[in-house]
């Protein structure tokens, strides 16, 4: 028979072990990022000898050099542009389709919806070859649109799925009364359903922003011109050309990581809700 003290001691010990375990793993997650940021502020000489996380003489000029001479300014603005256009496209096209799948009646509704879902399930690892051939035929290789359109399409299936689930949960009475007041389908979609769907749209926006910001394969295939490249591709180009300029490379990497970390920290509730909702239900 345990005494109460023994029981408490055992519980305390278990909590302590779990706490230390979690803290250790958390440190492993954070350390490489702090180290990247610290290295971006060192000089070409100190970066290989000084292993501290707080450089004594921070070289902020590295960021200016990375932004201008390293080309990361152009890459950064390109990434912002691509993320914005792709996400706006995805939200508009997927919300229209999701609203129709959830609320409107037409022959083939079920068929088209399952078709969309199927692409989420079936992996086609070679599809980028045919996509490249297609973009080549359409004259879209090395253009903005050649990089934007396939990514809009890439985000559609999951976004339609998430938004349809949300639209289905909206109360029908609201729409019925709007219809009686003479509102058209388009009006109901735009003025009623869309504003109500803001939380679901937030999830769609965040997931797709993360995906577009981190995309690499398509950028490598489609874009050859440095002026058109997004950050991830730019990082690899810079690394290939100046492999030894670690501080500038680390500054470029920090530039590419900061926006994503900020978005993540502001929106992490939606992100974690989104994955768990998508995974547990789907």
């Amino acid at each position, binding site marked *: 028979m345990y005494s109460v003290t023994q029981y408490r001691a055992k519980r305390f010990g278990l909590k302590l072990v779990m706490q230390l375990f*979690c803290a250790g793993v958390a440190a492993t997650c954070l350390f490489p990022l702090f180290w990247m940021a610290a290295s971006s502020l060192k000089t070409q000489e100190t970066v290989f000898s000084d292993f501290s996380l707080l450089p004594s003489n921070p070289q902020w000029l590295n960021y200016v050099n990375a932004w201008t001479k390293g080309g990361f300014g152009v890459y950064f603005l390109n990434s912002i542009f691509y993320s914005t256009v792709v996400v706006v496209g995805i939200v508009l096209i997927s919300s229209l389709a999701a*609203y129709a799948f959830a609320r409107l009646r037409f022959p083939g509704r079920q068929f088209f919806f399952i078709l969309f879902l199927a692409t989420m399930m079936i992996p086609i*690892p070679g599809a*980028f070859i*045919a996509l490249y*051939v297609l973009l080549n035929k359409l004259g879209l290789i090395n253009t903005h649109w050649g990089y934007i359109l396939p990514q809009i399409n890439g985000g559609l299936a999951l976004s339609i799925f998430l938004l349809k689930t949300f639209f289905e949960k909206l109360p029908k009475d609201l729409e019925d009364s709007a219809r009686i007041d003479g509102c058209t389908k388009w009006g109901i979609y735009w003025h009623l359903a869309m504003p109500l769907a803001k939380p679901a749209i937030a999830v769609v926006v965040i997931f797709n922003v*993360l995906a577009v910001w981190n995309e690499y*394969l398509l950028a490598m295939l489609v874009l050859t011109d440095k002026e058109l490249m997004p950050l*991830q591709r730019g990082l690899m180009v810079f690394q290939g050309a100046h492999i030894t300029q670690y501080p500038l490379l680390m500054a470029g990497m920090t530039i590419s990581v900061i926006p994503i970390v900020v978005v993540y920290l502001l929106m*992490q509730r939606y992100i974690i809700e989104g994955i768990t909702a998508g995974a547990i239900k789907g």
Partner: protein
Amino acid sequence: MKVRLKDTFENYFFILPAIVMFATFSIYPFFKVFQLSAYEWDGISSTMRFVGLANFWDIFRHNTVWWTSVWNAVYVTLLALTFQNILALLLALACDRKIRGGHVYRVIFYLPPVLSGIVVGLIWSWIYDGNYGLLNHWLKAIGLDGLTRSWLSDPKTALTSVAVIHMWKGFGWGFVILLAGLQNIPRELYEAARVDGANAWQVFKEVTIPMMIPVFILVAILTVLGTMQIFDIIISTTGGGPGYHTEVPVTRILSTMTGTSQFGYACAEGIIFGILLLLVSLFQMRIGKTFRQAP
């Protein structure tokens, strides 16, 4: 009647943009891959030579590099399925116990998954670097000079080192899903088991594990699909080398396509790989069903 027809017709306009995008950038490439796989084609010239199933035949009979790349991906996947997911489960169990700072941990553990594979690969290739790397620096500091090496260019350690990066980036994602699954288990079940006199291990075995089987299957399937298609981390660390030691299917398909300009052959590789992934997923779902039916 006329009004209703117009009404239904109008509804199609809602899905039209999605259908057009989808037909152009998903359906057309899907069928095009199958068509191209039967040809010998360099991707540029106007003439394509029909070869039937010769590309597939060649992959099965002669292409040892391809099968090495598949095996490499399988190796990384096996490590991810075991080490990465066990780590994720242990952390999820700890955070399910409402430890202090559980929320903060959840935010931190999911940070690596939101970073790009390129950035993660570049940071880690410096950590692993033979001359200036942190890992060797620390090994020397604790007197293990004998272990120091150029981790990513040594054939003995390259693939495992890449797998470690992949697991570092991925465990937080499994953690979030497993934690959500654990929190879905009704607390009454635990209390009832406790009242019946079960100890902690028995509760875990008889309540937690059976309730979590569907979540385990889901995490396993997504881990396999994600890890087999590993690419960004390879390209930003080893590029497939040394030799073919870290070559994976996606890098193979890419170099067949852009490196040696064999578009048809690359499509055949893609199809074989796609079918492999499909078979593995179906197999895992099958196992899931058997588990759920068993009492």
